[in-house]
């Protein structure tokens, strides 16, 4: 494939150091870089920079939170630039329009999309650099371009070999060539297992996470919060907290009382003394049972919005020989990233600098802008490594809190959340209730499927925070806020939020009559993006119900899926792969049972099979023997990272399937730490058998697509073993 960077998108050095060559291009193709921009900050806007001393730097525009983006994207550069990935100096890029995600219009890391959206642009930037070095070398050695070999980070001609840095002076005056990207047969790094570039620092304790990134001048802050999110302080007493050791200041912000001390432990100790009388928000009227009945009422009384309508569902249900019906439910879930939320702030009258582990640096900048009252060009965001993201760090509430604490106290601070703060103040994975109907015709085949779901939409919450990042910076603050406040109306009442129905409305199954609709019902607990988002529950609903249809219509669950997916070769291939590796067709020992599921999300197809056994010597408790997984994610960049992401997704999915549950009493989240919000530990991890389908297609998502499959595969295995269909999560193994 041949591709060109246009002149405006391509930056050459002249300004700052005068010794380097910088390459960038806009992923979205819409960046409008002025010369002033480039002269002032060309390095930060570039993806790739080569200096005369032969340092190759790559400005990583997506954030590393464990998913392997740093290694994957650096490998793309390394492949075309003919250097080893370890040779490249990886730096974090700043907030800039050039790094905006082409599909989201925001500089965010999410949707398992960093690799797919960077696949062509990054390789093009690197290939362009390589070809310009080749041309520069040809000029210098007075020979033809074809005579110059580029390999191992050097240009070679006859017996001379010189590093790239030696050609920078010539290269930067050359015109920009059209380049050809390597074909898969030419890959020497893409698709080969390699080491993770971030493994050494993360194994030596030298990696700097947000919690480690506070400048030395920062004091530590903690926040005393209302037990129900959204509550505000009516009145409060310090009870001597201000005189406790290390305490510098106590200030009130919109959602609590902040204690600032020399050490975080001192701040926490002093916070214990403070008593607050709270104004309780409306959500404090609700508990688990009233929340569930609210969903039931919403499903019964609201027609909702149509998300899919193939054929004639009413007629098909009327004509059916047999109609199967079922109701499914999932609870709210917390993200529980290993690193609690935190943010460091240095704020002056005209300058705000923050250090934050965030998945959305530009949204963080807007949060800081609004909280500080400064203009956007007075705010600098430093993105740090993140101790897990899983979607939680797309919300910037912790940035807003930190900046407000700095503003009200006049002190440089680092706000660190406790684990209790984290579990009880999340943007939760939505709870959802759905009802299915399926019709079986005279021949025993499934003729139609009808779905109606009720859940809170995520978009209103996102819209509120992100509006400022997509609106022009010159809009007055008040206007940005009023547009942002429209979120709930637009996405609550007017538009369908696609994430609420993803995995059902866009299902690959070929039913002749297929109807899906969604009722937006928000009990009032704030919700957010949780690893695999709507798929995390919709795959459980869909794949469990499809299994019910198979059993009710006396079809083999595997064969029925194959026939409903005949037009989807990638889904078919992953299904066949797990069935073959797990020997679905073979007779098993009498106590061994299997459940199968297949799902398409983030453009990736995954099939999963759970094999369980009934332990007669252990009160018939269910034991999970193994999980077999097959994935088609297109061309792999680093197959070992793909495998690691499948392992990771399976374990995340196991926590959801077996443990995850946030419960509400009088509006308060009842869980608080890892004793009552448990995560899978090493003793609960089954054997895993992971297969990656060989592919030359463009890469697709890997960080999320394994998560949704675990619950349905397990539920289907449990049904096979016990004849009992579990229609809510978490599943019981008893």
């Amino acid at each position, binding site marked *: 494939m041949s591709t060109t960077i246009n002149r405006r998108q391509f930056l050459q050095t002249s300004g700052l150091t005068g010794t380097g060559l910088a390459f960038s291009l806009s992923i979205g193709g819409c960046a409008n870089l002025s010369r002033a921009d480039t002269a002032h900050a060309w390095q930060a806007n570039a993806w790739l920079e080569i200096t005369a001393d032969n340092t190759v730097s790559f400005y990583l525009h997506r954030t590393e*939170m*464990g*998913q*392997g983006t740093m290694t994957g994207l650096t490998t793309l550069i390394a492949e075309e630039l003919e250097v080893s990935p370890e040779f490249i100096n990886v730096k974090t890029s700043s907030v800039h329009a050039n790094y905006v995600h082409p599909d989201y219009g925001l500089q965010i890391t999410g949707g398992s999309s960093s690799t797919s959206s960077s696949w062509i642009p990054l390789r093009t930037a690197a290939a362009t650099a390589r070809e310009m070095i080749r041309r520069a070398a040809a000029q210098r050695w007075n020979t033809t371009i074809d005579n110059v070999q580029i390999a191992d980070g050097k240009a070679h001609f006859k017996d001379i070999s010189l590093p790239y840095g030696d050609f920078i002076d010539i290269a930067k005056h050359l015109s920009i060539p059209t380049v050809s990207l390597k074909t898969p047969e030419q890959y020497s790094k893409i698709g080969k297992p390699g*080491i993770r570039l*971030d*493994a*050494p*620092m*993360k*194994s*030596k*304790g*030298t*990696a*700097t*996470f947000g*919690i*480690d990134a506070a400048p030395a001048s920062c004091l530590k802050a903690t926040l005393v919060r209302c037990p129900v999110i959204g509550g505000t302080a009516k009145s409060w007493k310090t009870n001597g907290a201000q005189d406790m050791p290390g305490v510098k200041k106590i200030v009130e912000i919109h959602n609590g009382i902040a204690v600032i001390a*020399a*050490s*975080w*432990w001192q701040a926490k100790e002093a916070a214990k003394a403070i008593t607050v009388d709270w104004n309780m928000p409306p959500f404090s009227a609700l508990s688990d049972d009233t929340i569930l009945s609210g969903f039931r009422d919403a499903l019964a009384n609201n027609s909702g919005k149509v998300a899919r309508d193939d054929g004639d569902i009413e007629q098909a249900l009327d004509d059916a020989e047999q109609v199967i019906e079922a109701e499914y439910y999932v609870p709210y879930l917390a993200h*529980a*990233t*290993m*690193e*609690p939320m935190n943010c460091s702030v240095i704020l002056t009258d005209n300058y705000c600098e923050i250090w934050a582990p965030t998945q959305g640096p530009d949204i963080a900048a807007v949060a800081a802008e609004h909280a500080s009252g400064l203009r956007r060009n007075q705010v600098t965001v430093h993105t740090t*490594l993140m*101790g897990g*993201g*899983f979607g939680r760090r797309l919300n910037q509430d912790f940035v807003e809190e930190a900046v407000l604490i700095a503003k009200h106290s006049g002190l440089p601070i680092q706000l660190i959340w*406790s*684990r209790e703060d984290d579990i009880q103040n999340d943007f939760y994975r939505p709870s959802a209730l759905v009802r299915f109907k399926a019709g079986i015709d005279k021949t025993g085949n499934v003729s139609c499927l009808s779905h109606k779901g009720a859940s809170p939409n995520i978009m209103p919450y996102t819209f509120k925070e992100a509006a400022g990042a997509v609106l022009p910076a010159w809009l007055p603050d008040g206007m940005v806020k009023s547009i942002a406040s429209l979120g709930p109306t637009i996405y609550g009442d007017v538009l369908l939020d696609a994430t609420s129905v993803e995995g059902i409305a866009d299902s690959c199954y070929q039913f002749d009559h297929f109807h899906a609709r969604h009722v937006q019902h928000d009990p009032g607990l704030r919700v957010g993006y949780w690893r695999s988002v709507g798929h995390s529950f919709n795959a459980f609903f869909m794949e469990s119900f499809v299994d019910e249809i198979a059993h009710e219509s006396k079809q083999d669950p595997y064969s029925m899926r194959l026939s409903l997916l005949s037009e989807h070769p990638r889904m078919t291939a992953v299904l066949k792969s797990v069935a073959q590796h797990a020997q679905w067709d073979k007779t098993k020992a009498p106590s061994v049972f299997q459940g199968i599921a297949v799902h398409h999300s983030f453009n990736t197809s995954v099939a999963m099979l759970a094999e369980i056994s009934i332990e007669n010597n252990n009160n018939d408790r269910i034991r999970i023997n193994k999980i077999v997984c097959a994935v088609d994610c297109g061309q792999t960049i680093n*197959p*070992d*990272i793909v*495998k*690691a992401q499948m*392992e*990771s*997704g*399976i374990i*995340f999915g196991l926590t959801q399937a077996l443990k995850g549950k946030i419960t509400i009493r009088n509006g308060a989240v009842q869980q608080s*730490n*890892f*004793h009552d919000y448990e*995560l*899978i*530990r*090493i*003793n609960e*991890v089954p*054997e*895993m*058998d*992971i*297969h*990656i389908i*060989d592919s030359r297609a463009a890469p697709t998502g890997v960080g999320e697509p394994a998560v949704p499959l675990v619950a349905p595969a397990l539920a289907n295995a449990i049904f096979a073993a016990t004849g009992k269909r579990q229609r809510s999560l978490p599943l019981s193994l008893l």
Partner: protein
Amino acid sequence: MITFSLNGKEFSADADPFMPLLWVIRDLAQLQGTKFGCGQGLCGACTVHLDGAAIRSCITPLNAIEGRHITTIEGLSSSSDNTTPSHDHPVQQAWIKNNVPQCGYCQSGQIMSASALLATNAAPTDEEITRAMSGNICRCGTYPRIRQAIHDAAKTLTPNIDTEHFQSDLTSE
């Protein structure tokens, strides 16, 4: 003033005797490789060695360690030169070789638990690894690789013992 040995050097903390060791290490000694995850002894992110044994520093008060030896991730490798792979502890080398870390936040604690295990049991079985490592949560789910890396490190520590048959069976095609 409470004095103890921190990574082989004497360290004196002028702090509340009940201040948890975790915050003494992070906020006073400025060693940030040891992480805060739960503050309640539930996750293992804060694991350090007390006289060679793995402990949770978030629930260990300063006054409990007076005069004793604390090792953190920064002090795990025998050499202070932590820049070349050859100076890393065998557990760290095995971690890098197996691409264990994902987000990496739990890994200091995992490595401290694993190295304490291997110090007393040079060739642990799967069962023994499970027991020693169950106090360390990894939200990213790196457990299969942690297990493999411990077996690998055991092999470097005791090259004659065959641990092959304990290895979990993870395949890829």
